[in-house]
């Protein structure tokens, strides 16, 4: 008995003990994929690229914050939402602002995704042309992300390689010029291999036209504050002219229709060259709806019972000067600034009549224009948001050409197309009553172009960039502040937006969070 037991126990224990250590300790992850074995097929590259695009539609960017909280409307409107107020949305910026940090994080995450994709782009076997398209989109997106960063933070860490190890990331800030140079190089390379927009057939994907247009925009920014690189006016003119010359684009005959198209999910790539794509209403499983129509969709509408339209937050309000800047008959005024409000009891629109501009909510992506089938949906909207419209290209061309003292007739042709459409006229047919003429000096034209941009492009997250590059940011904020003080609408919430703005606000602070992790980062002046 005893011997039997000994033998049995020895066998049991030895058999456990001799289990090979290494075999026993080898486990394989079953819940995720390994990057080393990914990006081997064109489909996987596509999936990688989709995630880079998704940066644009994320909440910290165009998915929500760029239209509402980040106060990019500068002097053309203000955020009326009173709670909370210690926030960038009221220019009450601190270096620990959560929206600024989220903006920073989202863009750098997008940049790393683009870097990683670019490093793996040659892995799959595929047609070189198709690979080129993919590459041009990735390069464009990386450049565009850096463009947003450099505009808003000035000097920033510049990373053109993906993260390889957890011990990286302590890069110092690169000069503004270096970042712009990288953006420029990427865009120039991307432009060469990009797919023409007529082949793509819609404005949701990065096309040759989109890259050319953004090259023009980048050149304008480089020509303005802070680089003041006058040589870039030539590039701005050249690239905006490339878009015009391509004959692929023209203004939609109706200004209103441009935005009705977004509401109805219709593409018009001739006008709307690059859009951030939103889809559905966030009903599971997808989470790709946006908030543009809630943020800039007219007055507050949140009727709880039997709603007729989708929710609109109505928290961006127009300023008086913008409202009054539209000449009589300019249809853009009432498209961009709601002349109505919603009755809290019936939920029906009520005319605002003659009430002062400060009671009017910004409106462009009106939810009433959504098809009945989707407009009831209240957690998100599928309305797309434009990054580049053709009217912007025309105005950029006009601006650059005017600065270069180019052919005045070309300048006038570009700006007048935009003006005519604003008045509800055919953009291509000259109209003596509203057309600007060559009687204007270069200075006058500059003022006219600068005045035209907010009328045409307000609430498209472009205004702050414009007034900063013109070196007019603080002046304009002071102007709006003075104007607001003189009206009975100057309650503390509304006033605070303009009162709080200081010259330092041309740039945002480098987030405290990031500086806490990376001691090599210096802070912008004033914070």
């Amino acid at each position, binding site marked *: 008995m005893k011997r039997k037991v000994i033998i049995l126990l020895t066998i*049991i*224990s030895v058999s456990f003990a001799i289990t090979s250590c290494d075999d026993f300790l080898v486990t394989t992850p079953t819940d995720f994929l390994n*990057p080393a074995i*990914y990006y081997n097929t064109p489909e996987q590259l596509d999936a990688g690229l989709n995630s880079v695009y998704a940066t644009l539609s994320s909440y910290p960017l165009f998915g929500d914050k760029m239209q509402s909280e980040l106060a990019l409307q500068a002097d053309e409107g203000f955020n009326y939402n009173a709670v909370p*107020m210690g926030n960038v949305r009221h220019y009450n910026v601190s270096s620990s602002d959560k929206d600024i940090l989220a903006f920073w994080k989202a863009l750098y*995450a997008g940049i790393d995704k683009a870097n990683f994709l670019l490093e793996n782009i040659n892995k799959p076997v595929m047609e070189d042309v198709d690979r080129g398209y993919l590459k041009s989109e990735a390069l464009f997106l990386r450049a565009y992300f850096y463009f947003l960063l450099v505009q808003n933070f000035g000097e920033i860490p510049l990373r053109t390689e993906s993260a390889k190890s*957890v011990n990286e990331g302590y890069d110092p800030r690169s000069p503004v010029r270096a970042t712009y140079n990288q953006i420029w190089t990427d865009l120039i390379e991307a432009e060469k291999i990009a797919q023409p927009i007529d082949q793509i057939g819609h404005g949701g994907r990065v096309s040759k036209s989109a890259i050319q247009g953004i090259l023009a925009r980048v050149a304008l920014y480089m020509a303005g504050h802070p680089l003041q690189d006058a040589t870039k006016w030539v590039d701005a003119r050249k690239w905006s002219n490339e878009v015009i010359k391509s004959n692929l684009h023209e203004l939609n005959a109706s200004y209103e229709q441009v935005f009705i198209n977004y509401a109805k999910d219709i593409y018009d790539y001739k006008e709307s060259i690059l859009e951030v794509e939103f*889809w559905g209403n966030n009903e599971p499983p*997808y989470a790709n709806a946006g908030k543009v129509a809630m943020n800039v969709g007219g007055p507050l509408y949140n*009727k709880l019972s039997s709603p007729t339209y989708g929710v609109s937050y109505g928290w961006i309000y127009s300023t008086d000067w913008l409202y009054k800047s539209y000449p009589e008959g300019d249809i853009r005024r009432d498209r961009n600034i709601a002349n109505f409000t919603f009755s809290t009891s019936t939920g029906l629109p009520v005319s605002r009549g003659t009430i002062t501009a400060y009671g009017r909510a910004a409106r462009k992506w009106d939810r009433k224009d959504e098809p009945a089938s989707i407009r009831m949906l209240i957690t998100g909207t599928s309305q797309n948001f434009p990054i580049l419209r053709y009217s912007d290209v025309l105005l950029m061309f006009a601006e650059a050409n005017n600065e270069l003292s180019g052919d005045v007739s070309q300048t006038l042709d570009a700006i007048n197309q935009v003006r005519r459409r604003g008045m509800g006229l055919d953009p291509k047919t000259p109209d003596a009553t509203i057309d600007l003429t060559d009687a204007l000096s270069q200075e006058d034209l500059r003022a006219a172009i600068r005045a035209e941009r907010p009328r045409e492009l307000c609430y498209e997250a472009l205004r702050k960039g414009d007034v900063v590059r013109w070196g007019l940011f603080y002046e304009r904020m002071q102007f709006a502040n003075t104007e607001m003080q003189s009206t009975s609408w100057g309650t503390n919430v509304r006033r605070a937006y303009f009162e709080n703005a200081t010259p330092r606000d041309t740039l945002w602070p480098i987030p405290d969070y990031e500086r806490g992790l990376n001691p090599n980062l210096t802070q912008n002046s004033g914070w």
Partner: protein
Amino acid sequence: MKTLNEKELFVKQKLILFFLIWILSFTNTVDHLYAQTTASKKTLIGIVLDESSVPIVGASVLVKGTKNGTVTDLDGKFGIEVPADGEIMVSYLGYRTETVVVRNQTRITVVLSENVESIDEVVVIGYGSVRRGDLTGAVSSVNVENMTKAPVASFDQALAGRISGVQVTSADGQPGRTSDIVIRGASSLTQNVSPIYVVDGFVLEDFDPSSISPQDIESINVLKDASSTAIYGAKGANGVIVVTTKNAKIGKPTISYNASIGLNRATKRMEVMNAYEFMKFTTERFPDVARSVFYPEVEAGGTMDPEKYRNAPSIDWQDEILRTGFTHIHNLSINGGSQGTKYLVSLSHFDQEGSVINTNYNKTSGRIALDQTINKNLTLKLSTYYIRDHASGIVPTDASVNSQASSALFFSAYGYRPVVSLDPQANEDFLNSLVDDELNGLSDYRLNPRIMAENEVKNNINTMFIPSANLTYKINNHFTLLIRGGLDRRLRENNYFYNSKTRLGMSRPGIINAGVQGGVSFYQYNLASNENILSYNNTFAKIHKIDTQLGMSLQSINTSSHALKYQGIPYEELGLSGMDKGVPVPQNSYLSSSRTQSFFARVNYNLLSRYLFTVTGRADGSSKFSPENRWGYFPSAAFAWRMSGEPLLKNLDFLHDAKFRVSYGITGNNRVGDFDYYASIDTPYRGYYSFNNGTPQMGASRSSLGNVDLKWESTAQTNIGYDLSLFSNKISFTVDWYKKVTTDLLLKAKLPSVLGFEEAYKNIGAIQNQGWEFSLSTVNLHTKDFTWNTDFNISFNRNQILSLNGEQDYMESFASWDSNFNSTPLYRAIVGQPVSQFWGIQWDGVYQYSDFDATENLDGTTTYALKPTVTANGNPRVKIKPGDIKYKDQNEDLNITSDDRVVIGNPLPKHIGGLGNDFRYKNFSLNVFFQWSYGADVFNANRIYFEGGYNVRPLQNQFASYVNRWTPENQTNEMFRSGVGGSESGAGPNGVYSSMHIEDGSYLRLKTVSFDYNLPSKLLEKIDIKALSLGVAAQNIYTWTAYSGLDPEVSVRHSILTPNFDYSAYPRSLSVVFNLKLTL
């Protein structure tokens, strides 16, 4: 020469002993050492044996009534001169002292029987047990009998203050909330620092203390120093709690039944403003809202008179959600057996209604233990536990709507308005309506707290099944082989159902539109382990005792999680069973596994029972690290000198035991995710993108960067301890000093965002914990009818970060509770300082008129401009008014910015401890237990919203303390003025943490009192009952503290980096139960 040397040695020894004794302040008895005796009549020769006839070496032999004595030699023999009528007393540590009348005998054999006092109590340590007297490490035992008198569901809730060096805290009073146990300070920053548990020999990582019914526990020992824990190698760094459950006993079946029935209620509630005070505040702060809601008749700009509401009835919302709950506890066990087979079966049930309506906890557990002797060398022990516990109801700490503070239960309970109008019917209607129509639903998520709590269905159900088998084979007198196998299988089910009257199920256009939601998730945990241990023990030349273990173990853990979630559920009356009619929401599911393989050895060497040595070594391999870093090696060594065994000290009759211990060793920690060293690709729906109105297409991106260099974290610990027991163990005292240095911290490090990743595990940094522990047990009185025992312990731990990431000298952490504070760090872990400290602006009271230059205006008003020499509070100077909050300007730039932040509080206690007194008089017993924590600060975030803060919502009630706010008539320095909201309030800039809300969280708690009466056995014998006792026990009876919140023991966002944060905490309960204990 030789004799001289011996003499020298002797003198030297004496001096050392003298010194050691002296420092322990027993100088008055030192003369015992030099005692001489002359009285001698005849010589007695004898031998001292133990019960198994083994000679006892070093037993002390003393002639009674004299100081004349000797000790037994290596053969257990002694010779002594005794008067003819004399008596000798023979004593030896751990044995009963025998007194022998000598009479005519010249040769004598004395047999000593073991006594069952503390030093001989067998202490269960890792992979074995040892007599307390032979212990070399720092091991504390819990007085289980006293501890289990507390009417609690699981032992961790009664453990606080019971043992030195062990800090037990729980987040709040939610029924079923598990405690957080930290032994000798946190040795990690981001990882779990809870100890591992060894239950009846099985190593259980991530053990849930509620797996064991307190009534089943026989003993709890806490292994603290490296010598005791290094045998657990990679898992030992956080200490080890060794739980032994009750054993089956030979005899006729014994049936015991204990029942406790009682009530519990919240120990405290917050005082809020009444209707009148609320109206005064609201008209001041939100004049527009006040006018439209309460004064429709008053024109804009007109005066609103709060006096109108002076006697208005107030609704007390805390009354609406708090209740007196019912508790009942039942335990039944049967125990018995023969020499060959012993069994024990126990069943327990615990049921508690929480003090908040609709929150409950119940637990049912069963255990079967069977001991079978197969033959004289082979025994088999089988044991199985089955436990099911169920916590249900709303979780107040959960701010579940967009992480907005206003969605937490107590935000509504404190903040819902106390008055609707002067019409009592309106109040009545208001009590029954879900939303207050006057609130702005886009930014204010308050709901009627009663309806909110009543409707939220939330269940957390744990089922645990833990079977194990132990096979012991005694190969011969020296070798024993133990083979152990066991499983720990757990299934956790979380389900919830949010109907249209709940915060997440209701419709909030633009905020939540998921409709009625329901979901269920299952988490499975399967641990399988095998251990094989070969023990050898032998005594050589009678003085060299060797006890060794050699073993190996294998452990594998498989986990999985699966979940279903639906929204837009159409028929809410069907509850969870109707959820499949809704829209499915994608949920994560995963399967994962980890394995460990270990080899270990221990040698205990005992020389003369005076010099004790322990050496251990362990090698651990873990699948959580890449092959190059897989194995870790963990050695330790300890030495103990039982000086009371020295011949010179033998005859100190007051000295019962004295032992000096020193140990050093290295332990490890591998608590990271199963596959954290891998980089990964993920395809979340957020990364999808739609082109051309098409269905969104999959987006893939790296979700983690991985770190192939990950390896073990290791902790080196030095321990020096002294155990002293005096007057037959009537006083026993233990002191330990330790120093733990943890290096290669497994740190979930935040990565610079420019990498595109939030965080990753790195082996970075070092932490040191250093401290003292004292415990004292005394028998103050011991007579036939009356005994009084006291247990006291106190622990001091200081920790310090030695280094962090090379370039980083601090780490910031956030308490997630409100979006306004999302990006304001509340904690900083700074190199050279404790693991976490509160970080913020130093509060400096309130701006008074004297801080301003006053200018009389033409219209009779006065304008106040801040004096140029007075610092601004972060708001523009022109905005600052008398009564605004004032902060301390650290860098003297006359403004407050983030650069003015400093350490504003320390959440770690300076000392913690417990004091228990046990009184017995005849058949009555009374046990009174106090527990305290001294010196820890608490951040009371409730006050940010309930004492006039920046983001106070319209129609939000405030704490009564805010009645004392600054007004021109009440120029207090305590509470800033109310202002008219937002940046016009007196609260200064938004999103700022300041020391205004830091409070001293020191407390002394009368934790447990129990009173029992045992019915006389004579009486019971007649009715065939072995024992019957009746009693009453109470828990959380009273707490002495200066803390203004509900309870100073609070940490609702608990982690090492974010402790002691109080927001919407569940109140702690005072529970009182009546007991009946019956043994048949």
